[in-house]
């Protein structure tokens, strides 16, 4: 036997369906209304004449012959900690996935990326930039031709020179930068603070000192 459809539930269903469709169209209505208005002046409106702020220029190159090396550097990746002995020449870019410790008079001809902490020894020469994700210590008389970018604390000892290359350079840190007897104009950006101290011995964390001890022994 065929069942007759009950008209009342059908109307109820249609009412709900109509309401549902109405609500959907309501949100389009606002969109269309907004579209008809002139465009909102967002913050990205073009500023043709936008110029960068005048920055402190890095001091002029005082050492002769520090020109850009045009050769293409190979990049090597080191898994774990790395300790570079005295007087070594590193002729490539290096990504160190652990900590880096270098002894005296090491020459880095490429750039450095250190995932751990880095302790750069006395009279080291970095001919490109160094990016460090933890603490960074630059010992006495280190030369960095381009930039230092560090996520952790930065300790810069006496006689360190930064940004001597033709490309220029500076320091940026997400944390505090400690400078020992800083001299001359230097472009420094720190998210926290910049401290100029007489000696770094008091501010260097103990565990970083241990890293330095390892280097010395």
């Amino acid at each position, binding site marked *: 036997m065929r069942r007759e459809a009950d008209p009342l539930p059908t109307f109820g269903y249609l009412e709900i369906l109509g309401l549902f469709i109405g609500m959907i169209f309501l949100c389009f209505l606002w969109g269309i209304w907004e579209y008809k208005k002139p465009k*909102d002046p967002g913050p990205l409106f*073009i500023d043709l004449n936008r110029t960068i702020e005048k920055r402190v220029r890095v001091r002029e190159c005082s050492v002769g012959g520090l020109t850009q090396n045009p050769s293409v550097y190979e990049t090597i990746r080191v898994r774990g900690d790395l300790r570079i002995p005295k007087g070594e020449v590193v002729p490539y870019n290096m990504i160190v996935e652990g900590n880096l410790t270098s002894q005296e008079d090491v020459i880095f001809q490429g750039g450095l990326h250190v995932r751990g902490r880095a302790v750069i020894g006395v009279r080291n020469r970095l001919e490109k930039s160094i990016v460090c994700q933890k603490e960074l210590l630059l010992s006495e008389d280190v030369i960095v031709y381009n930039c230092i970018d560090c996520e952790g604390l930065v300790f810069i000892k006496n006689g360190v020179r930064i940004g001597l290359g033709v490309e220029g350079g500076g320091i940026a840190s997400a944390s505090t930068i400690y400078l020992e007897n800083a001299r001359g104009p230097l472009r420094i950006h720190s998210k926290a603070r910049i401290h100029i101290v007489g000696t770094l011995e008091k501010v260097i964390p103990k565990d970083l000192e241990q890293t330095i001890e390892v280097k010395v022994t």
Partner: protein
Amino acid sequence: MLLVIIAIMSLYIVRHFRFFSNRLFKEQRRCQQDLAGTFRPSVSILIPMHKEEKVATSILERFVEMDYPKDASRYEVIAIDDGSTDATPSIVDEYASKFSFIKGVHRVENGGNGKPEALNVGLKVASNEIILIFDADYLPPQDCIERLVAPFVDVEVGGVMGRVVPVNSPASFVSRIIDIERAGGYQISQQARYNLNLIPQFGGTVGGFRRSVLKAVGGFDETKLTEDTDLTYKLYLHGWKIAYVNAAECYEEAVLSWEMREKQLTRWAIGHDQCLFEYFFKTLKSPVLTFWQKVDGILLLGVYTTPLLIFVGWLIGIFTYLTGGPWWSSLFPAILFVFAYNSIGNFAVFAEVGGSLFLDQRRRSIWLLPLMFVDLLANVWVCSRAFFKAIFLRNPRPSQVETLFSERVHTKTLNGFGNNYAHQWDKTERSGNGLLYYTAVATELDVTNHVKKAEIKRNNEKRG
């Protein structure tokens, strides 16, 4: 089948809401922008041009005004005229004769074979350490180059990508929708992927590479319609990273009509699907990528196949409902609709677009969000069709093409599905109205400044 589709779409939703929450509530990576302006390596800028007379002058003018040392050994602009038959060659020559750092490259005999080929020719001429690429309809501000080169301080960074902002968004309905979609894609998605150390993508323009990296991976692949996505994956699989610089904004002319949008979207979708076929297993097996990079890499590769999944899901859902499946089967079309609305777009989902407009302080534009539904429907249709076109493009045919780095010769071309996509320019038509908007705003700024100055003068006079 339906459950698999829903599971995949759920993954996309989780991914996008992760991006959203990271961008809005977590600390953002600095991307060496503190060093922008102090670190200025030697740069070669490549501008591939094919019949660009409407926009050639404006982009070359922008690079003349760029805030960067203009000595020829460190800054060169290479305008590559790729077989243009309009006034483009003469515009390029005019600028090359006036400014020593602008070089004009004309491809007369073998010209007109597409952007990747033009870029490879440009690379042969380029001599500097960093290679940046700009499309001809882009209008970079004066600090764009120094912001883009700053991440190269890091030796791990092989490529960089800036933010694309449509300049002509008031021009049409399509350009307004693209404007907000781009905002979500760059402001939220790209930035979050960079924050989370996933895979920010090089977008083919407003970005660049180290020359040594390009050489290592063999330059631009001329068999791909999206050589940018291809390069992104090549870089990551070789252990390099791409930095996304949100502060390096560059203005572009967005397309104005649905026809142009369809053409553009088809090209992107086919190219992206080509990369999906090539890099899916390579990404999974990579010893270099982390677990989450692999997950993001796979989801990014599949971003243009999700519309097809949605489409299939709708069909199965409706079929199940009509053929008397269980009571809950009727929920499938609705669920998929919601999923689609939340996850389709050019990396820009509903929440991401809303979040980006919030960050950009464009509160009024949030009302336009529901209208993105139209874009969703277009995406479903265009990307589904493009997927099948991409399948027929999978087996390239040999041809003789002279390319970058003579020791590596690409011997492939693409012919399939009735179209020859490779070795021809498939760009969208330029309206040339970008400069009008650009100039209009600049004039408005001048007027505002003038009014302010006059007001200050009047106040000073009143004070005596």
